[in-house]
């Protein structure tokens, strides 16, 4: 895999981790805050 492809694949991976992390954070924090 070329460097540019490796970079893109990493961006895709971390985007998914980011989306899931944001989702989990919101779904845990707001109910705990009594929303």
């Amino acid at each position, binding site marked *: 895999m070329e460097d540019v492809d490796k970079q893109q694949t990493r961006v*895709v991976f971390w985007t998914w981790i980011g989306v899931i992390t944001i989702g*989990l954070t919101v779904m845990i924090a*707001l*109910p705990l805050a009594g*929303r």
Partner: protein
Amino acid sequence: MRKVIRDNGLSLAFLTIFLLALLGQSFAGHAYTNEQLQQHHQPPVGYFDFITSSDFLVDVAENWQSEFLQFFLFILATVWLIQRGSPESKKPGDEGVGGDKEQLVGEHARSDSPRWARAKGVRLWAYSNSLLILMGTIFLLSWFAQSVGGQVVANEENAQHGSPPLTWIEYVASPDFWNRTLQNWQSEFLAVGAMVVFSIYLRQRGSSESKPVGAPHGASSVESE
């Protein structure tokens, strides 16, 4: 740009339809909630208030937890259990975690293997199980999210009916929590089992989830390659 989309089409397509479906769920859920409020002669709730409410979040969380549990169990089960003829399974006799040579770890790692595949001890163990660990962690966190969101919703209803609020422990032992949980689990387990079994005899030409069309029914994915 075209190459980026082609190289990552699967993940981009699913990210897009995930976001669209979540947006659709938020619109439909908002409309449904306001219908219910109207029937009870209560004022409507705003869209932003709805999507940040436990009412909406618990519905999202209960589906997330079951999906990640499904993959967690499937990844774990396919290490040790076999279904003869399924492309989702290893072939009979290959049960277990495999040897170091086959897994390209330690001294058998190649020059292009991930760095942690060359490591030893805890680092190699962690990397060897990293997919399962991540899926399991997301499952537990989304299940926890379901429990705290569900508790808020249940206690709002309790307050309306003059019942005392439930503690978190009381809520996770309640029928509501397990009804939300198990109604999602049953469908995941059914669909995974069906996929494992149906793919023994049925094919989808061109899909990585299927054996080649002409592969024999008795061959697993590894044998049919």
